[in-house]
């Protein structure tokens, strides 16, 4: 659904990796770019809000109060609910905070697990030359399917719910991370210390985990973070379709779907969660673009 999912030529990966090795300089570049700095700051605040949601949420996100149902923001009868209340009188601010918490939590967990698998695939493809073609072909095939199709198929086999959502998001994170990880590992493979390790008689396991992986993980971690924006968008779409998080779970996508029925009388119930998703994904994409520009010397001029 976005150009971020387009396959990059392999040498572009290599260029990006080489540049990432000078990462301190890159972070300085990014922080000097106002939109990117703003995006970074926003994401820090958002993540903090998600982590501390139970402490800062003014109300219980699941406590309904039918006397206050669909009370618009700023109305006198629900002055304590800054963003109003939803269809069962639950506080919007608290639900948004908890929604952010579950949306981010699910996406981070899924991308971490899927990215972990992808990273291992990439490392193996770079280390064992014989495995390279079959593994990378598999990755290309996965990359060629629209992510939402994985979501549909997994929800169909395992049923709808958070587990399916988690698996779907994880699976879609595998191929792009595998590509990045292979590119990173390939350039590390050419380093002298790899040869030195082999010369002193280290086994494959030690070489892969203690030499290769340890040098590749910062690169992989950065790309994993950037993958989060896409995961949030996909997760929200699946939950919106009713295939992911189920009501009454406070999750941004299903909150947006829930509020759809009251669109004409209380549009904020679904608009506000949508806006939050948009801003978070936008921040990830702005940061990702800045990083890509900083990494790709060809685009920099």
């Amino acid at each position, binding site marked *: *659904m*976005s*150009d*971020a*999912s*387009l396959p990059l030529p392999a040498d572009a990966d290599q260029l990006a990796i080489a540049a990432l090795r000078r990462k301190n300089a890159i972070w300085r570049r990014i922080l000097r770019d106002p939109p990117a700095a703003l995006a970074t700051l926003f994401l820090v605040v958002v993540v903090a809000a998600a982590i501390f949601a139970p402490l800062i949420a003014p109300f219980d996100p699941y406590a309904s109060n039918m006397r206050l149902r669909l009370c618009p923001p700023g109305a006198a009868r629900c002055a304590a609910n800054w963003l109003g209340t939803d269809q069962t009188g639950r506080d919007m601010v608290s639900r948004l905070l908890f929604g952010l918490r579950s949306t981010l939590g699910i996406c981070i967990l899924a991308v971490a697990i899927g990215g972990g698998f992808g990273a291992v695939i990439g490392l193996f493809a770079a280390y064992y030359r014989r495995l390279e073609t079959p593994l990378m*072909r598999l990755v290309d*095939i996965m990359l*060629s*399917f*629209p*992510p*939402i*199709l994985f979501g*549909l*198929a997994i*929800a*169909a*086999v395992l*049923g*709808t719910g958070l587990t399916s959502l988690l698996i779907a998001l994880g699976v879609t994170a595998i191929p792009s991370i595998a590509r990045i990880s292979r590119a990173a590992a390939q350039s590390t493979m050419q380093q002298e210390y790899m040869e030195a390790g082999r010369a002193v008689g280290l086994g494959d396991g030690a070489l892969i985990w203690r030499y290769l992986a340890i040098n590749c993980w910062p690169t992989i971690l950065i790309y994993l973070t950037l993958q989060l*924006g896409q995961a949030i*968008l996909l997760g*929200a*779409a699946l939950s*919106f*379709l*009713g*295939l992911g998080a189920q009501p009454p779970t406070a999750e941004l*996508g299903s909150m*947006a*779907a829930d509020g*759809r029925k009251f*669109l*004409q009388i209380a*549009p904020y119930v*679904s*608009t506000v969660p*949508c*806006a939050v*998703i*948009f801003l978070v*994904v*936008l921040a*990830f*994409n*702005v940061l990702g*673009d800045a990083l890509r520009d900083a990494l790709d010397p060809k685009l920099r001029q």
Partner: protein
Amino acid sequence: MARHIAQRLMISLPVLLGVLLIGFLLLQVVPTDPATVVAGPTATQAEVAAIRHDMGLDQPVWVQFARYLSRVARLDLGRSMISNRTVVEEIGFTLWPTVELMLASLIWAVPAGISLGTIAARKRGTLVDRAIMALSVMGVSVPIFWIGLLLIQYVGGAGLLPFQGRDGPIWTLDGLHSIILPAFTLGAVFVGPVARMTRTSLLETLGADYVRTARAKGASDWRVTIRHALRNALIPIVTLVGLQIGFLLGGSVVTETMFSWPGVGRMAVGAITSSDFPLAQGAILILAVGFMTINLIVDVLYAYLDPRIARS
């Protein structure tokens, strides 16, 4: 060229098998025993066993998979558990509306994206360029359902355009009316990527020697941009658009569901949420196969436009 196509088909074969395996799996997770259902509530144990044998359910899984493959080859995908129509029939109803929606989205989004990208490239570095690029990042960040919700709220809610269902084929006036909002929603997420690709591709060709030659001949700025540079920039744009069409298919799942558009995507979601396994299997199968077909066509087209690809 023929070799390239053959090669591509060879790669698609295992993928197709994988897709079919998922379809087969879907029919395996049905919580009720199909033989018991067919036999009816009064059947004896022996009758159920006989029916199970007739249906091949006592065979090893791989034999059942082989039977499934032969059924799919004969276009027998089973029956929907809810409507009791055959799955192939259901797909027949929904396929065209989906194609219609995708075409209607592309027809405005691609020209819009190319125009915006061209303007951005021509005004490179100016405020206009920055605004267009900012718009394009926003376009890829916005949840597609928000665009739909806003349109339903403001345009649909005001009674300006219909937003529920498809009122007829696109060539009728009612049909045309009812497709505007869904097509706008689906196309909106497509404009940004196309604009961005156009800008990048055009900036490359604008630096080419033949563009300088055209300038030296005294051609006007816009003439150089459109006749000389854009024409050559178009090849990568067309292919990238082709590759993204598959992702449009993904977006159509959400759009169709929101606007009650009777397409394959909405059918897939409906079948999954109502546990209509045969229909879900058919919908996912047709989405995946449709997607693979588009990719194959784009790939072959690309090789045709740029022979270097086939040779490598």
